[in-house]
């Protein structure tokens, strides 16, 4: 079954009568209306092509008869008139239509300029032809309007094609969505449209099929190619408990999956929405360009009129050339390139990012990321895997290691801290059944305490021991050695007696070292933020080559820390968990949420990294720099085309080449204008060749 892309109804391909092929894909429709609506943009484009072809066919002879002296003088203008008038009012009708709409809505747009310029040329030429005594010179300029119109249409054609290529990445993302799914209902496997699958229903995915929606594996096993959504090039193993992403490709095994997110909630839908919305957030550069664009037209008409008058009354170059001066300025002045300089680069850049699992939420974050001088990494779960495990147990006096572990497990039973998980996990592994604690109390930043039988137990860092007057000197050497090794050590005390200690370590993420090195290479200062004690934190910091370690930070203090780093006026980025570190990420100039996984939309931060891979942080910064560089290149070209050439159109070359330069200037102006946006969009497409340096 195929889906009508317009109304969403399902159409049976085998019996469908109404279909159309667009850009290589066949679409099916339920009705004529839907078919017409879908193909409307294609039809528009086809009309544009036909009009250009007609224009070209008529312009060639026009140009020929103008520049080559084949025709006898008396006949010439009449022939040219016959060729040029259909171009002016047939092919060029769209500019009159646009002018009418524009004036009716109190706007002033490019159509007005083109209509003004070409009509002036045509009208002047008509007067020359039928009332030759009105003007001092005899030459008509029918070819001017014709060539201008034809060139502008050519520019539109090229621009349309280039724009299509620029938005390809986004369109490809949207096309990834599968249409059908195999659901288990009442014990039977049924094939249904993907929209009809509800959350918690079970679907079967066979080898080679696309995962229909986001879900969790409940049976079977396989590896899945997730590259099209996360950018991960190596297929990912999926077993019961693993999450799967809609639109990814199941490779060789079979999977039973329970649906968790459907429709607009799937990662794919969220990504598409995010990329689209990234196109409208306004970066400061773009606001400036838009403002220039909005005042452009009236200003240009003023400059054009002023130039023409100056040349006629002061420069004395003659009426004909003055009129051509007016036309030249009017034609060169569409701010098209200026208006598209930033959006074009932004589209290709964000599209490229999405392909790599780097989601940039708007142009302003790109710009800020490009200028970031300091990056702060949260330690646990960001630089490390967030899965600590017990590495050492030291027991004092007559206590055994199991007893120490058991007491520690009792104390950590009420805690949700990742360290607690490590300890409880270790206890379970040893088959230890730790008793329940009584009067449990957690002291943030220090440790936990509880009652076990007659004794008050304390389990935590040195600060806690100090608070409860426990002398840690018997274990100091152990403590120091373990901390120097980058481990987090917790001391266990009963009453005021030292019992032992438990050391826990978290694995540093695979690419942490390389990512930090690369960032520093890029001239960015790397800072690590952690609640760990100084010694442990510094040990890890040294191992990773971190510039500055900020340790013993309470969870509620992270935001303040970011603020302090910003007080120097520099731009600070923070990398952390998009949900747990939200306040600090929001405070940073660019918050980079790493490892978003399925909840892309909920993550705080200007940049969201889908994978847990730290190399993506480097990729995000590199991409931002490349995109901003591309925007600047585009603006450079746009300035030259749209603003730099105005003086030339207004007559800067006349002192050098004489007024006859105006015989060709209007057409050259049209050429420059027509190709200005194409240049900018094509230049932006080059950004599509970006490859992350670390992958």
């Amino acid at each position, binding site marked *: 079954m195929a889906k009508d892309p317009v109304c969403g109804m399902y159409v049976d391909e085998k019996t469908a009568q109404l279909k159309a092929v667009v850009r290589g894909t066949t679409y099916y429709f339920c009705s004529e209306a839907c078919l017409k609506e879908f193909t*409307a943009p294609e039809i528009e484009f086809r009309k544009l092509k036909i009009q250009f072809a007609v224009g070209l066919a008529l312009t060639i002879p026009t140009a020929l008869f103008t520049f080559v002296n084949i025709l006898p003088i008396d006949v010439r203008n009449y022939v040219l008139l016959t060729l040029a008038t259909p171009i002016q009012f047939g092919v060029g009708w769209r500019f009159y239509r646009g002018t009418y709409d524009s004036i009716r809505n*109190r706007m002033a747009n490019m159509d007005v300029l083109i209509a003004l310029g070409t009509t002036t040329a045509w009208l002047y030429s008509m007067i020359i032809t039928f009332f030759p005594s009105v003007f001092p010179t005899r030459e008509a300029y029918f070819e001017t309007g014709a060539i201008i119109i034809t060139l502008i249409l050519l520019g539109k054609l090229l621009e*349309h094609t280039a724009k299509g290529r620029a938005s390809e990445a986004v369109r490809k993302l949207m096309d990834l969505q599968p249409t059908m799914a195999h659901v288990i209902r009442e014990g039977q496997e049924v094939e249904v449209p993907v929209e009809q699958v509800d959350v918690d229903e079970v679907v079967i995915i066979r080898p080679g099929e696309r995962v229909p929606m986001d879900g969790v594996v409940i049976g079977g096993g396989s590896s899945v190619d997730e590259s099209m959504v996360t950018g991960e090039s190596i297929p990912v193993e999926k077993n019961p408990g693993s999450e799967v992403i809609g639109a990814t490709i199941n490779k060789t095994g079979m999977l039973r999956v329970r649906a968790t997110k459907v429709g607009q909630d799937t990662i794919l839908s969220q990504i598409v929405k995010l990329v689209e919305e990234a*196109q*409208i957030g306004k970066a400061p550069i773009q606001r400036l360009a838009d403002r220039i664009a909005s005042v452009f037209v009236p200003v240009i008409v003023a400059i054009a009129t002023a130039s023409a008058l100056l040349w006629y009354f002061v420069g004395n170059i003659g009426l004909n050339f003055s009129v051509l001066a007016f036309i030249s300025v009017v034609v060169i002045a569409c701010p098209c390139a200026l*208006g598209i300089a930033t*959006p074009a680069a932004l589209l290709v850049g964000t599209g490229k990012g999405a392909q790599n699992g780097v989601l940039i939420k708007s142009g302003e974050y790109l710009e800020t990321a490009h200028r970031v001088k300091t990056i702060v990494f949260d330690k646990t779960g960001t630089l490390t895997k967030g899965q600590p495990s017990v590495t050492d147990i030291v027991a004092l006096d007559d206590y055994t290691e199991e007893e120490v572990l058991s007491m520690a497990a009792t104390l950590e039973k009420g805690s949700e801290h990742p360290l607690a998980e490590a300890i409880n996990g270790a206890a379970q592994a040893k088959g230890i059944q730790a008793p329940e604690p009584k009067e449990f109390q957690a002291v943030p930043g220090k440790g936990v305490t509880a009652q076990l039988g007659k004794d008050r137990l304390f389990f935590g860092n040195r600060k806690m021991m100090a608070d409860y007057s426990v002398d840690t000197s018997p274990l100091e050497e152990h403590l120091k050695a373990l901390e120097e090794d980058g481990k987090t050590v917790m001391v266990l005390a009963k009453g005021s007696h030292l019992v032992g200690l438990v050391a826990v370590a978290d694995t540093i993420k695979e690419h942490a070292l390389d990512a930090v090195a690369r960032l520093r290479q890029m001239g960015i200062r790397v800072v690590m933020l952690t609640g760990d004690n100084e010694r442990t934190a510094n040990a890890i910091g040294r191992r990773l080559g971190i510039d500055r370690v900020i340790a013993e930070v309470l969870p509620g203090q992270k935001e303040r820390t970011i603020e302090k780093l910003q007080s120097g006026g520099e731009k600070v980025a923070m990398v952390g968990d998009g949900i747990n570190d939200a306040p600090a990420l929001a405070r940073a100039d660019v918050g980079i949420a790493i490892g978003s996984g399925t909840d892309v939309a909920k993550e705080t931060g200007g940049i969201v990294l889908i994978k847990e891979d730290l190399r993506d942080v480097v990729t995000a910064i590199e991409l931002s720099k490349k995109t901003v560089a591309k925007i600047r290149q585009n603006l450079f070209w746009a300035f030259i085309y749209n603003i730099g050439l105005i003086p030339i159109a207004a007559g800067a070359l006349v002192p050098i080449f004489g007024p006859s330069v105006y015989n060709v200037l209007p057409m050259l102006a049209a050429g420059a204008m027509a190709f200005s946006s194409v240049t900018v969009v094509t230049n932006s497409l080059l950004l599509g060749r970006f490859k992350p340096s670390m992958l």
Partner: protein
Amino acid sequence: MTKEVRIVITVPGLDCVTCAPGIKRALMELSGVKKVEVSIMLNKIFVDYDPEQTDTMHIARVIEKTGYKIHMSQAM
């Protein structure tokens, strides 16, 4: 708190940057429309509006009056 809905409308032929301010102004004059953003690259207009004061029909009509043909169901 007033409800706000976002609608995204595809407008083929939204070529030049000079056309955007006019459409924006026309839409903002429609009561109930809170924010309008135009993307020339995507050929899409994003309109945030209060569904109790106006609806997609009115929005579509305003856009068509500026000279662009849109088809209603192309709005997401």
